[in-house]
């Protein structure tokens, strides 16, 4: 593993805290732009950020806060982007949230159009192969984009041109307010990948240390075999709430999609759920209480130095 477990855990904690701070700003109505928080997505984001090498590129979706923050590592810088008061960003122009990229730090392209970044990523993969620089794109997408033709087309192109690429599906089971079962039949990604002779891997349970080892391995295999790999990551986007009113006396589950998460409080700066759905909960188990408390304290201090807590 290229980074020790404390470093990885700190990254993960800081990413969670950053999102909770943004959520507080959101609750107060600070933003004019739509933001899709990714609380619950931290483990895979930290793993990708850690495993991506210098020349590797990231291609993101509308839900990109986790990857962008890890490359900025400054809550203030991210807030400035979202407040459209740019001062520290490395992007060339203001992109708001859904198209936020950072070419100088490897986030070469971000699109809010479902499935759009897969094809652009395929082009980046071909360019990197032509340049023979031993690097690959990490192309992030979600379960909603599996339903787009461009998902299939892009895998087909990558395989047909023998281009290495790591395609990661963050499967949170929802597209806007509809769950997978409410909108479509089951898609067996492993079978789809098999039909194209593409290696498929399934990750779940939000173990960042395990994810780092595996993503490193998948990246390496992709380059060695000159072939894309497809990784499905099962996760939950945290921040749901139960709507109770006269229409829903017993309560209605509201999935978090975008905007503020009203029930997520910053009074607890890190943990949201005591379950495997929360990468913070999973990571905590690897540390003694005192070590964990120190890590949290260090992260809070770093953010306080930015004048944000």
């Amino acid at each position, binding site marked *: 593993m290229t980074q020790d477990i404390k470093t990885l855990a700190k990254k993960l904690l800081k990413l969670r805290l950053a999102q909770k701070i943004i959520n507080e700003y959101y609750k107060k109505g600070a933003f004019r732009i739509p933001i899709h928080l990714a609380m619950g997505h931290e483990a895979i984001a930290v793993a990708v950020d850690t495993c991506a090498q210098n020349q590797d590129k990231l291609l993101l979706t509308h839900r990109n806060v986790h990857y962008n923050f890890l490359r900025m590592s400054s809550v203030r810088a991210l807030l400035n982007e979202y407040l459209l008061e740019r001062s520290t960003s490395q992007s060339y122009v203001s992109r708001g949230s859904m198209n936020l990229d950072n070419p100088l730090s490897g986030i070469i392209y971000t699109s809010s159009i479902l499935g759009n970044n897969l094809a*652009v990523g395929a082009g980046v993969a071909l360019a990197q192969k032509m340049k023979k620089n031993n690097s690959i794109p990490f192309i992030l997408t979600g379960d909603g984009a599996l339903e787009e033709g461009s998902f299939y087309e892009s895998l087909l192109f990558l395989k047909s041109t023998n281009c290495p690429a790591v395609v990661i599906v963050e499967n949170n089971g929802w597209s806007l307010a509809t769950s997978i079962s409410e909108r479509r039949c089951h898609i067996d990604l492993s079978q789809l990948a098999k039909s194209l002779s593409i290696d498929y891997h399934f990750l779940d349970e939000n173990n960042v240390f395990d994810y780092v080892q595996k993503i490193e391995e998948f990246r390496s295999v992709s380059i060695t075999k000159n072939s894309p790999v497809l990784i499905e990551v099962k996760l939950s986007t945290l921040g749901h709430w139960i709507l109770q009113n006269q229409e829903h006396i017993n309560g209605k589950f509201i999935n978090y999609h975008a905007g503020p998460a009203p029930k997520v409080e910053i009074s607890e700066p890190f943990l949201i759920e005591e379950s495997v759905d929360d990468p913070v909960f999973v990571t905590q188990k690897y540390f003694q209480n005192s070590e964990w408390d120190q890590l949290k304290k260090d992260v809070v201090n770093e953010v306080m130095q930015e004048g944000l807590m």
Partner: protein
Amino acid sequence: MKYLEYVNSKIKTILAEAPQTAVYGQNINAGSCIGGYTRGLQLPENGLVLNTPNSENSLVGVGFGLMLSGVNAVFFMKQLDFLLLGLDHIVNTHNIVRTTPAVAAFSILPIIVDSGYDGPQSSLNTLSDFCSISSTDGYTLTNKHDIDFVLENFMLSPGFRIIGFSQRLIKSELISFDEKVTHSENGSWFQYTYGSDMTIACFNLSLPQGLLLTQALKAKGIMVSLFSINPVLHKNWQPLLLNYQNSGHLLILDDTKSASSPSQQFSFEAMQSYPHGKVRLEKRQFSESWFVPSSDEFNIDLVDISHWYKGI
């Protein structure tokens, strides 16, 4: 030399010395090589000629990915209507990519189905619709001079554009002019003849009709200034408007089947710029025949035009 042969030869010459470039498309290096347009392509060692799967949407995205990575991309497409599948990228991806300085080229080179024998697919013969929806530069090439200028200057220059060829002209003799051809810096217009009696402005792929008319009018003693106009973003129509103000007669030819075309805007601007002159727009009128195979000629009535000129 035929139009097709010249285009193929020009493309081959430019690509043979191209800095790192990926040239791709369906059958570009196999079978008919897109009717011969891409036959015999060879690139320098760091370049690539790639036959692709039939995935037009993604292939447009691939071009932007190559461009973002500093590799030139040239995507040959057998029919313009295939590009409908890539509209998301030519609008949305382009809108993102264009906000940063371009370091490489992405050019899409479709054949515009401007002959009627493809039936329903021939009903889409208008490059400017694609350029309008995506605020993109476009060029419709009909003759030696615009082929030379546009391909030499824009096919591999940083940024995105669409360069369309005529299916109808494939087997025709290449149109070439003896007089010096002038043009705007960005290729928004070309001028081929310099008469003072009438200004003819040709949109889309109607230059051949404009040329025939110019020659026929010359035989009747009416000397024409003949232009072609491309749907580029930063258009400069002033020289054409001045020419019209001098001639007093502006005939606009437009073979597009689109309900909305830049020729209508040009017509309006011309009438505003010189209300005392005569402006006439010859444009196709909607017909159910567009959706069935036919010769689908865009014919201009010489007698009618002569009468209009003489005020009869």
